[in-house]
């Protein structure tokens, strides 16, 4: 009897996932391989699953200084993949600043296929050095939704953006067709946080982070994600003006609140919570992609916020299944 686990590829930290549409019409795994310290697990498929679910794990629950993980993913026509993690991706300290811990993700998504990547945040520990590169090459009719977020570290141990360097680069490319051949860069979102660089300008990194405990970016592209993108853009446009005064009397206010529709009530409740929990966010349409940036005082506040938005809108659960949302609720 063969091993119940998928076969491993050969280079340390390498992994590969291939998803395609099965003859039965559901998304299924064609290949899944990985090598220490990366670990991939996919629960056994059920007949009515909306997407293939894969957990990205690492042995020991984190990346030790110098680890390098390279995951490449192929999502074939009409199939769907959801990627999640189990707990924060911890990045342990590097023995010296030139030892870099890295994660690279290369994703190809074909026409009418979709990827949902909603992981837990990356948690870089004190003195860690981390580089993350995520490159998405999309066919014209492909859809993706992915979240990239980073925390201040172990706040319980007093860590507050105490790492040496954290670099995250996300690129969305539109694949060239046979005729043109050249891929077109749609969005390149890069964040470079460096403790020593910040100190050179006279301020520790935590001061420039302005009391945020978590900072995140959500990127959306494609037909399937259009309603989600519009939802974020509309909610952003409807945020109350900063510095505006409410001249209504208490009576008028109560009256107007009573007349609110369910969705207006939901929005005003959420806006109230945003204020309370120090959530700041913005949304923009950039070259056909919707980019949402958010910061919150605590990781939980950030998680609640992004989770409540995605759950409320509903497309993610509808297209990928509710498991895709497990890291944001």
């Amino acid at each position, binding site marked *: 009897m063969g091993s119940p686990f998928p076969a491993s590829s050969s280079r340390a930290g390498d992994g590969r996932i291939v998803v395609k549409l099965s003859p039965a019409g559901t998304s299924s795994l064609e290949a899944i391989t990985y090598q220490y310290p990366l670990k991939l697990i996919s629960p056994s498929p059920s007949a009515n699953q909306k997407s293939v679910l894969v957990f990205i794990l690492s042995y020991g629950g984190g990346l030790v200084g110098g680890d390098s993980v390279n995951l490449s993913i192929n999502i074939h026509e009409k199939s769907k993949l959801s990627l999640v993690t189990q707990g924060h991706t911890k990045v342990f300290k590097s023995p010296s600043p030139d030892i870099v811990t890295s994660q690279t993700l290369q994703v190809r998504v074909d026409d009418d296929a979709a990827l949902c990547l909603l992981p837990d945040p990356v948690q870089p520990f004190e003195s860690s050095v981390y580089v993350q590169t995520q490159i998405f090459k999309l066919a014209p009719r492909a859809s993706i939704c992915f979240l990239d977020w980073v925390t201040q570290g172990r706040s319980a141990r007093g860590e507050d953006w105490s790492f040496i360097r954290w670099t995250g680069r996300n690129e969305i490319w539109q694949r060239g067709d046979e005729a043109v051949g050249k891929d077109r860069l749609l*969005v390149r979102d890069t964040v470079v946080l460096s403790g020593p660089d910040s100190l050179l*300008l006279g301020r520790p990194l935590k001061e420039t*982070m302005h009391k945020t405990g978590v900072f995140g970016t959500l990127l959306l592209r494609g037909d399937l994600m259009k309603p989600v993108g519009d939802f974020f853009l509309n909610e952003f446009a409807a945020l109350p003006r900063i510095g505006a005064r409410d001249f209504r009397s208490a009576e008028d206010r109560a009256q107007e609140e009573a007349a609110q529709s369910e969705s207006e009530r939901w929005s005003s409740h959420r806006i109230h919570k945003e204020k309370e929990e120090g959530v700041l966010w913005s949304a923009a349409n950039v070259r056909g992609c919707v980019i949402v*940036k958010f910061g919150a005082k605590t990781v939980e506040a950030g998680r609640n916020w992004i989770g409540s938005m995605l759950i409320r809108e509903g497309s993610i659960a509808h297209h990928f299944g509710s498991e895709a949302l497990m890291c944001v609720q």
Partner: protein
Amino acid sequence: MALNAVNGDAESINGEIEKLEAQLEDARARLKLSQLSTRDEDPTASILKPSPSSSTHFLLLLSDSALPLGSFAFSSGLESYLAHNPRASTFSDFLPSSVSSFASTTLPFVLAAHRDPKSLFELDDQLDAAVICTVGRRASIAQGRALLSVWERSFRSAVPDVPEVQLLRDFSALLRESKGEIPVVSAHLAPLFGTICSMVGLSLHQAAYVFMLSHVKALISAAVRASVFGPFQAQKVLAGERVQNMIELMIDREWNTPVEKAGQSVPVMDLWIGRHELLYSRIFNS
């Protein structure tokens, strides 16, 4: 083997075509130069690069706050920062964040365009993909287009006919045709600034310094108009060693940063700039 060479993947053939095209362009430029320099009897033609005194002249023009780029209309997030932190805001906190963020996101594009003006089109497109907020994009494009107009209407006639002149002509022709969701070129400020500085004879370091100083000047001028402090305090900040050090540090930090790795060093800046649209009352466009 032969079959392989015939079929060879499209990418490598494309690469070859691009290389050959670049060579052709280069050769044409050199031909033009040599034709120009052989016309010895024409005294103006022998001056191909602006002379040192003319480059100082342009250095002063480009650093002048009267340069009509419309920079006064933008506060680069300062107004939004003040509104978001009504009690705890200080300009001395905002300045280094803004300088760092501006340098890390745009300075590599200025440097790259100065080093290789021919890459202007590519750099402009890459910067357009990297500006991830509406307000910031608007500010960058508005000033970039203004700079292009200044070049066309005012500077061009005063600059000897170097090959890059044609390059900018092509660029603005393409800009007029560009529309749709993903324009071919957008005319962002940073790459155009680098290209134009190199054409009027500014050194790489001068270009970077003027670019960063202009940002600081625009910020400080915005602070005066937002009643953060008065004009004398403003000059004191500008003249201070802190600003000088800051600019030099930023130029050092970004000197070798490839544009592919340019990124946001102060993430909250994206939030403040992005949320500028939400301010109830505004005196600036960013």
